């Protein structure tokens, strides 16, 4: 991945508009966050291969960035995005990393479902 180029991301968001796409949306503190301090909790959520269709996709901010996808019945929102990659020419991967390279948030959009394992021996 590389630091987000806003224009490149916006172009990709535009390409994926008005069609069924699969999203991976995730945020996490890491499973060991609960060990830090008395009342700390580990928080994680992910949706892998949720199928959505958005009419408008927009990247905003000046880094870290936000992305919103406007759908007929609601929204997808991600904040804290720092890096991006276009994978296999069609999948848009966005992620937010801290100063140790640890992922805190990810939003990925693809016309095909994301794989659930490496599929290889």
């Amino acid at each position, binding site marked *: *991945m590389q630091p987000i180029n806003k224009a490149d991301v916006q172009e990709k968001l535009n390409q994926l508009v008005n069609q069924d796409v699969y999203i991976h949306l*995730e945020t996490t503190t890491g*499973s*060991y966050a609960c*060990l830090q301090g008395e009342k700390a909790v580990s928080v994680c959520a992910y949706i892998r291969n949720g199928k959505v269709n958005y009419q408008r996709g927009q990247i905003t901010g000046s880094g870290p960035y936000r992305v919103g996808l406007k759908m007929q019945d609601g929204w997808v929102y991600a904040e804290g995005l720092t890096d991006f990659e276009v994978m296999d020419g069609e999948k848009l991967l966005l*992620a937010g990393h801290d100063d140790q390279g640890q*992922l805190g948030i990810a939003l990925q959009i693809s016309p095909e479902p994301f*794989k*659930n*394992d490496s599929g290889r021996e």
Partner: protein
Amino acid sequence: MNRPVLAVFPHPDDESFGKAGALALHAQEGTPITLICATSGQMGRRMGNPFFANRETLPLIREKELKDACEAIGIHDLRMWRLLDKTLQFEDPEELADRIFQVILEIRPFRIYTYYPEHGVHPDHDALAEATIRAASRLPLNERPEIYGSAFSKNCMEVLGPPDIIIDVSSVLDKKMAAIRAHRSQSEVMTKKIDEELAANAARKDEILASQMKEQFWTYRWPEELVTRR
């Protein structure tokens, strides 16, 4: 030939952090080791420092790292299930236990390394540990392998007492550190710190690596045993 040991862990690197030394000692003695790794660690938060993996490339990278770590430790029988990270807790525990039980019947280990149920912190650790106990419990008490459980929950000392097994792994420290370093995407955050300290204070190597030279385990107490003792 020595009877084998079985290690049952959900993520690539679980076999290395806090356990690679004990396993390397088995390998050194000629004890065969079978490792079940249930997921590919697909959902790990660490991507290397600086990061070189992303959510989609991580599983294949971690599988390769695991193979390299196994090489460093001396594990020649690696069984990768490739289930999805964080989801073990939602699978049917009987089905997980079935798969583990098959391996127990096949290799007849005298000991199993896994997490201590309810003290593994990560939900996958606890789910797989419980399935492992469930599998081993299908054997009569006197035929069951002993279970060396790893615990690091906040209250593990309070609930389980101090660990009854403390192993000096200083003789295989190089192998252990090689295994940890093999898991580069996950261990760089930690090894960078160690390397910086070593670079600054080469003479204090033993002190800097002291925490890596001992490994601790809690022998699992079967409910049947606890009943007869009371």
